């Protein structure tokens, strides 16, 4: 399956990129399995595993873990600092 992964704000700096479009094995069923997979590709992805990191799946803020499926866009978000 194909998942688009976005790295927001400071995570973009940390990962050195805005986005990955990855072909993933179907065994990756949720955000936490995906995070573990990303950590095997790049140690910088350890930052994504931090419990303060929030998720936006397609157009919604979702809890961790959340299920992912083919065609999804999952954004990793540092804590929000608006206002």
């Amino acid at each position, binding site marked *: 399956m194909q998942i688009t992964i976005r790295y*927001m704000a400071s995570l973009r*700096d940390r990962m050195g990129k805005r986005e990955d479009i990855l072909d993933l094995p179907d065994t990756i069923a949720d955000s936490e399995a995906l995070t573990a997979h990303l950590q095997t590709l790049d140690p910088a992805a350890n930052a994504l595993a931090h419990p303060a990191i929030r998720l936006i799946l397609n157009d919604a803020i979702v809890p961790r873990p959340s299920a992912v499926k083919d065609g999804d866009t999952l*954004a990793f*978000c540092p804590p929000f600092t608006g206002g």
Partner: protein
Amino acid sequence: MATISITVSHDPIDSGARLDALAGADPDCGGLASFVGQVREEPGLVALELEHYPAVTEKALQTIAETAARKWDLHRAVIHHRVGRMEIGEVIVFVAATAPHRRAALDAVGYMIDLLKTEAPFWKQVHSNKGSHWVEARDTDRDAADYWTDQIASEDA
């Protein structure tokens, strides 16, 4: 049914004009409360830059305003948030509420500003004369949002 108005834009926010648009707009409301958040002068600070997650941000702000409107019987709830680069003194966010009674309007504004700090996908970057860095989330902001969440949960229980 309350009127909700949400905008997220790169354009400067004219607080006075926004307040004028609300003053008198609800003749059945005695109270209009507002909060303006501005870029605060700090040693070395040159500008703030606000990034967000389009579509999700607006939806998050809409939910916050609707929750406030329901809880405090507002007639109108307004959140205007700026994104992009802002200099010292410029307006980051304008939040306002009209209600028949003053306490409701003031509490609703407090709720909305507290919640949008932790529940809407904005990220703040500081550009200073020493370089740029992302602003870290503050525990006090988290606590402020939790306070309201707990309060609303206990009322619903």
